[in-house]
């Protein structure tokens, strides 16, 4: 019996989340296979084959899988589920989208966003915006799991697995792509960044956000993040949102600027190694989790900080 990891990729390269998911899978057993489902995705399959610990890569290459739509992807995974004890995907919008369909079609629970593996049947997962950690045990025949990527190290290269083709089921034809507006940025990916500079409502508007935070992020080689309030107000796009219902991050250094520290925001960043808070309100809850707090007006302090680096 083996464990199946479903790779997140863009056909050419693997997303970092695949590496974290693999690390979680390797805690469950030693025979871990990776499924690369996509179109013209041989390069991604090659990248999966050299990950340390992978026993085999299965590639499903079909036009119906090109856009990663949940319906076709779930049908594929269900068609090949027999023989696996665990099926894992990252708890990113990619994994969260299709994996519950797999679980429902297999008539098993999905164990969402695990942050630790206790044993092959027992997992820890955050609930209530991370204010509690539940230890849950599954009695299902196959465990269908999404993985909190920040809770597991990234698997490294060093393997040389064989690559095998698998057929894709017929296109369900119910979904079509209209368009994508993907953020293009030279900066590191939020989920994998070592340093994050994050801004909230205190920035006032999108221009301020860019003028004040971008130079600091440039100096630090950091990714930019935001609170929900900053996204709702249109300062930055939706994919900047850190929190319970946005992205969960755990960089070496998280600098929260003009962010009050609501529980929903803390849920997404409180596992960062070092937290810095800059806020003019000395009573802001963010200071309760900050390693270094600086009370002051961000419009004065942040340019000073940028200059001092």
């Amino acid at each position, binding site marked *: 019996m083996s464990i199946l990891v479903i790779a997140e990729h863009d056909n050419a390269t693997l997303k970092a989340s695949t590496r974290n998911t693999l690390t979680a899978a390797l805690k469950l057993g030693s025979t871990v296979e990776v499924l690369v489902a996509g179109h013209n995705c041989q390069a991604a399959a090659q990248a999966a084959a050299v990950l340390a610990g992978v026993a085999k890569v299965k590639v499903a290459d079909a036009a119906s899988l090109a856009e990663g*739509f*949940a*319906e076709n992807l779930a049908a594929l995974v269900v068609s090949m589920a027999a023989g696996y004890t665990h099926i894992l995907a990252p708890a*990113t*919008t*990619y994994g969260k*989208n299709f994996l*519950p*369909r*797999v*679980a*429902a079609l297999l008539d098993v*629970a*999905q164990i*969402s966003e695990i942050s630790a593996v206790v044993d092959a049947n027992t997992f820890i997962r*955050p609930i*209530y*915006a991370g*204010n*509690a*950690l539940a*230890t*849950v*045990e599954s*009695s*299902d025949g196959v465990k269908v799991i999404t993985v909190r990527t920040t809770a597991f190290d990234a698997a490294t290269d060093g393997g040389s697995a064989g690559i095998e083709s698998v057929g894709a089921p017929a296109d369900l034809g*119910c*979904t*079509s*792509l209209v*368009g*994508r*507006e*993907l*953020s293009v940025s030279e900066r590191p990916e939020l989920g994998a960044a070592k340093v994050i500079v994050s801004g909230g409502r205190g920035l006032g508007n999108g221009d301020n956000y860019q003028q004040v935070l971008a130079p600091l992020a440039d100096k*630090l080689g950091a990714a930019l993040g935001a609170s*929900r309030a900053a*996204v709702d107000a249109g300062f930055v*796009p*939706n*994919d900047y949102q850190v929190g319970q*219902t946005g992205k969960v991050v755990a960089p*070496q*250094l998280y600098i929260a600027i003009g962010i009050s520290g609501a*529980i929903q925001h803390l849920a997404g960043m*409180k596992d960062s190694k*070092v*937290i*810095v808070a800059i806020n003019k309100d000395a009573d802001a809850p963010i*200071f*309760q*989790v*900050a390693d*270094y*707090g*600086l009370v002051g007006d961000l419009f004065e*302090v942040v340019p*000073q*900080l940028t200059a*001092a680096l």
Partner: protein
Amino acid sequence: MSLKILVPIKRVVDYNVKVRVKADNSGVDLANVKMSMNPFDEIAVEEAVRLKEAGVAAEVVAVTCGVTACQETLRAAMAMGADRAILVETDVELQPLAVAKLLKAVCEKEQPGLVVCGKQAIDDDANQTGQMLAALQGWPQATFASKVVIADSKATVTREVDGGLETIAVTLPAVISTDLRLNEPRYATLPNIMKAKKKPLDVLAAASLGVDIAPRLATRSVNEPPKRSAGIRVGDVAQLVDKLKNEAKVI
């Protein structure tokens, strides 16, 4: 237009409450805690009601699965504009797969053309039920919606994804799950709260729907996350830079 929209809603701990783990580690303490409609479900109700107001939908039916007290959440949905409501009543602890199965049974009775649910319940943070319902129905899904347009038996939905935005078209019937930017839910007015009291609310016993709702996951314990304690206040930028360089060694 004859589109019927079913809106599954969940009664959860209010988002302002910071829950506490029980001393015996069996769960979180929900005694005397304020309960509200899951915020994503308010967004779902709002969207469905707007589609009705725009003449796109004919009827909005709110449904919840849970204990008797969930009736108040259904009344709240009707005060926002849902036409009627269904409580699938049970005292059993419901997990997402069980809810999806109950909702499937309701879909078979009601034959909606569209289901609009929340992307995530803020108590279990599962983010599963809508996708599971769509799979069980053999329907397409459009999760994490920030814009919905219904025309020509299709839903064109802009989705909030990790890399930005993605717009897809799905055939109806379908399940749409809401994200934060889809709309801003209205507050119920007093006259509408009064009106909601007279709207129909049907109660179905979960047991009468003939589906297996037994939990699949057993909770062994619930614990406090590691506490993060407040560090120090620095007096100025120079001190901050010094600490980051020489104490934390992160820059």
